[in-house]
């Protein structure tokens, strides 16, 4: 075991970074999550509403005690009920951005941000200077003197972010940190966030519903459903190989489960899909809606996958239209507006869908 190994490359039991098993009982709900991250790593917790993401963050921050399990950060045990160890929240090097901000209503934006440094013994003037600095990075210099009630939703969230970062935590917890930000600010804050996290070599755990944010910000995604990890891995991996409906809809893929026999996958529903991968046994098959081509009449194409489907609905997506199709293989297809016009699509219309085998992606279930 090499202690000098760069933390991210450490393959053995980690001594640096986060290593936790979080078990929390909350009435009928039970959270049971393994979570580890190397310094500098950003882990995103994704999951449907009520999956336990906020509960996990509270447990990491020390606000909700573990029922059992253990929590180690940088080699230090912060909590382990079995050994009756528990570091209180204020002694954990942890920063939290709460889902509803929880800015102190009686303090100005500046003093909210200066609060953490003050608690860590930084002299008042310096703490305020640091805070002003943070607010500047968030583009909020002109709102420094405002009380939280006079801030707009997005301004409040940026102040909350600055407040959490100002203590230079070793573990940064973010509950939907970008949800209320507008597109422009979001890009900036996102970039800034990455920059600061990299600077500090801190571990960051963030909860988000926005697949884009998760993909862009996180090195690794942990998908939680009903208090348990259902899938974990690099964003690209997960987006290509979703294992549950929730994840598939999250990353905007068509996902099917079936049984592979060479390049052909027979789906549980009866239809078959031809893939490039050569597999045997139970598999998942996924493909993006944009990979589907629709035709008015049966095409005479090289595409290996051809299905006759019916239009169930349409929704515009930016400058694209997402078409919901039913039939032997229910799927979503993304088309451009001219294409839709040309095909004269409308609900109830029958169309032919083709899909190149190279656009599909199959992997063992």
């Amino acid at each position, binding site marked *: 075991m090499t202690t000098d190994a760069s933390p991210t490359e450490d393959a*053995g039991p980690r*001594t640096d970074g986060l290593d936790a098993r979080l078990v929390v009982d909350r009435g009928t709900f039970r959270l049971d999550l393994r979570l580890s991250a190397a310094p500098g790593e950003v882990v995103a917790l994704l999951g449907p509403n009520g999956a336990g993401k906020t509960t996990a963050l509270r447990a990491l921050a020390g606000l909700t005690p573990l029922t059992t399990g253990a929590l180690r950060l940088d080699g230090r*045990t912060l909590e382990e009920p079995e050994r009756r160890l528990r570091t209180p929240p204020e002694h954990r090097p942890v920063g939290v951005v709460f889902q509803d901000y929880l800015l102190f209503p009686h303090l100005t934006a500046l003093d909210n941000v200066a609060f953490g440094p003050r608690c860590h013994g930084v002299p008042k003037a310096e703490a305020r200077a640091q805070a002003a600095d943070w607010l500047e990075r968030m583009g909020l210099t002109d709102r420094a003197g405002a009380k939280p009630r006079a801030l707009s939703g997005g301004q409040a969230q940026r102040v909350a972010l600055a407040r959490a970062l100002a203590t230079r935590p070793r573990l940064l917890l973010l509950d939907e940190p970008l949800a209320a930000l507008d597109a422009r600010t979001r890009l900036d804050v996102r970039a800034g966030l990455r920059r600061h996290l990299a600077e500090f070599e801190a571990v960051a755990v963030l909860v988000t519903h926005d697949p884009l944010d998760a993909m862009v910000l996180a090195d690794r995604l942990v998908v939680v459903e009903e208090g348990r990890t259902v899938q974990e891995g690099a964003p690209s991996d997960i987006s290509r190989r979703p294992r549950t409906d929730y994840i598939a809809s999250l990353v905007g893929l068509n996902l099917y489960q079936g049984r592979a026999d060479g390049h052909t996958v027979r789906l549980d529903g009866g239809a078959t899909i031809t893939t490039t991968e050569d597999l045997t046994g139970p598999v998942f098959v996924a493909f993006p809606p944009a990979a589907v081509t629709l035709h008015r009449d049966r095409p005479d194409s090289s595409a290996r996958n051809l299905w006759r489907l019916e239009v169930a609905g349409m929704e515009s997506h930016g400058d694209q239209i997402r078409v919901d199709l039913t039939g032997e293989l229910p799927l979503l297809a993304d088309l451009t507006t001219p294409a839709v016009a040309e095909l004269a699509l409308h609900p109830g219309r029958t169309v032919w869908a083709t899909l190149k085998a190279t656009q599909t992606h199959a992997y063992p279930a």
Partner: protein
Amino acid sequence: MTEQKSGPVPDAATGPAEVLAGGSRRRSGTPRFRTGVPLPLLLPALGGLVFLVLPLVALLVRAPWRSLPDQLTSVAVWQALRLSLITATAAAAVALVLGVPLAWLLARARFPGRRLVRALVTLPLVLPPVVGGVALLLALGRNGIVGRWLDSAFGITLPFTTAGVVVAEAFVAMPFLVISVEGTLRAADPRYEEAATTLGASRFTAFRRVTLPMVAPGVAAGAVLAWARALGEFGATITFAGNFPGRTQTMPLSVYLALQSDPAAAIALSLVLLAVSIAVLAGLRDRWMAAS
């Protein structure tokens, strides 16, 4: 340092990890928060508690335990106690009905002279109770500026009646409720009232169904204050309502009179009063004070 970090999992926490006390297992439920109480709060809190409780302990230690059974068998004591409980409860009810709206007015409505009104509300606190009783007589007595008219128009006379006791107690106790409820209302977020009005609630409905339940702990605290103050009220009661056994003689009046003739008996009576109020308060409180 290198040594320390190299173990798979360090055995001892290196930071200020808190070792849970042995009793932690017994706590049921999931506490929201650690139970360790910071010393800078614990010490003055305990100081305050000792300060308040010590005189009561002294009273207990020096109490004439032998004369207590005699007191408890006296019909007059039970009569006074009963009257005290009834009138204090009635006074607290009057204070609630009139005081909560007044507190709301002070906290939420904007009108000129609000500060003056608030100061006026506080005055019955400052008035020595006997003078308060005199003021009540001047206002509601047989010759009072309003009492004269109450008497001639409706035949209502308040002095020397049980109703008069309630009036005197409510007069002294209501400011406590008004001021403490106003404080709670001001600390409450007015946006919930706004949300209620967008759902079609009138301002009154919003108050009754949203604000009031949300500040229930504060209102309960105010009601407890008012009830307890009414239960202990002496000066205004005896001045305004007089002292007639079974009609206007409450426990504090009994205690005061006993003090004249038999101080030991007075202490015994006070202990009875205290015991009853402990029973009532400890019995009722958590149901009311439970945060929403």
